């Protein structure tokens, strides 16, 4: 019980709750281990709190490799299973170009220009969400 306030571990990504939305801000280089840790934290937090949306802000990330790209896609898929929507916000142009050149177009992942646009997107009803692709028919 004394671990209620666990020391922030290096590379640990904080998950903030804002009403019905979880906000995750990624900064700088993200290690593979902390990306997987985030994946686990997110699914547990969603299951516990029953939020309806997750916003992942990656405007501070300079490099996204194929592993992180896959982790992001997996996070989106698993939050979908937990009845929440994930929006990726603020991707840099260079990162977008790199991902496309790698062939990782991340279909089915919702994207927004910045966190504000992402919040607006989540505030809208499910049917009105755009560019969701094949995930639209899920409840």
């Amino acid at each position, binding site marked *: 019980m004394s671990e209620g306030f666990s020391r922030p571990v290096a590379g640990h990504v904080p998950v903030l709750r804002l009403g019905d939305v979880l906000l995750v801000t990624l900064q700088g280089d993200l290690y593979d281990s902390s990306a997987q840790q985030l994946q686990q934290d997110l699914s547990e937090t969603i299951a516990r709190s029953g939020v309806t949306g997750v916003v992942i802000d990656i405007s501070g990330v300079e490099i996204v490799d194929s592993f992180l790209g896959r982790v992001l896609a997996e996070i989106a898929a698993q939050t979908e299973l937990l009845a929440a929507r994930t929006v990726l916000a603020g991707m840099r142009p260079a990162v977008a*170009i790199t991902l496309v050149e790698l062939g990782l177009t991340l279909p089915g992942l919702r994207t927004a*220009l910045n966190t504000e646009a992402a919040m607006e997107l989540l505030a809208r009803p499910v049917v009105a969400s755009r560019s969701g692709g094949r995930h639209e028919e899920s409840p």
Partner: protein
Amino acid sequence: MPEREAGGSLGTPTDEVRDFLRRRREQIAQRWADEPLFRTVFTVSRDEAVEAGKAVVDALAQVADAQRVEDPDAAGFSAVREQLARMGAARARAGLSPSQMAGELAALWPPVENLLVADLDQAPPQGLRECSTTLSVLLGTLRLVAMQTALSEGQALIDRQRLQLLEVATPVIKLWDGIVAVPLIGTLDSARSQVVMETLLNAVVEQHARFAILDITGVPTVDSLVAQHLMKTVAAARLMGAECVVSGIRPAIAQTIVHLGLDLGTVKTRASLADALGHCLHELGTNIVQASDSAGRR
């Protein structure tokens, strides 16, 4: 210095040519000033042409002095290289082909030869022939230097213009709050599509654009490579949170795309830029109402 008056004893042909060039500098320059190459470049005054001719003669004498009549990289030429480039560029602007330019350069030879023959008429025929050959080689080298300089000048111009074209050809236009458009004109190759992608994505960030329209009305043909570039740009824009609409697909191009079996399924397309703008405005929830209609109903 060899004795000239005696007529018999000549130095080596190169030395003789050097001395001849230094002795007759003024006359050669005067005659060259009347040749089309100098006359048409230095139109302001004849003196200017004469001065330019003197500079070239000095350079030739210096090269002969260094015993490097066959070397276009000789140090002596560096002084007149810029001047030759200017002359070459002026002639090229006047619409001369390289062969015509070579002809004008060749026209510099006869006056010099005449002067040489007149100057060395006392010399034995063997010595005269040797001098004439050396001078001819020297002028040949000059032609080579001039053509080299002119051509490299042309290449530099082409490089500069290619760079300008790259910058000019990809403007990003803001059509509405949150809507940007890129009208693509001309053939899309890898380098250009890369520039288009970068400028478009940067504009999306700067202008907080939710919609980006790629207008390909000005693209003459669409093959699989161009289609791939388009789809990459669309995918990158989507990753950043903007929706990309491709507009301006002409009927012929639509047929080509279908014939090639290209799948643009993930790309939203509209027939014209106006349709694309209408679609984006609709998605943004903006309605455009005709002023006269609304006024009439009131």
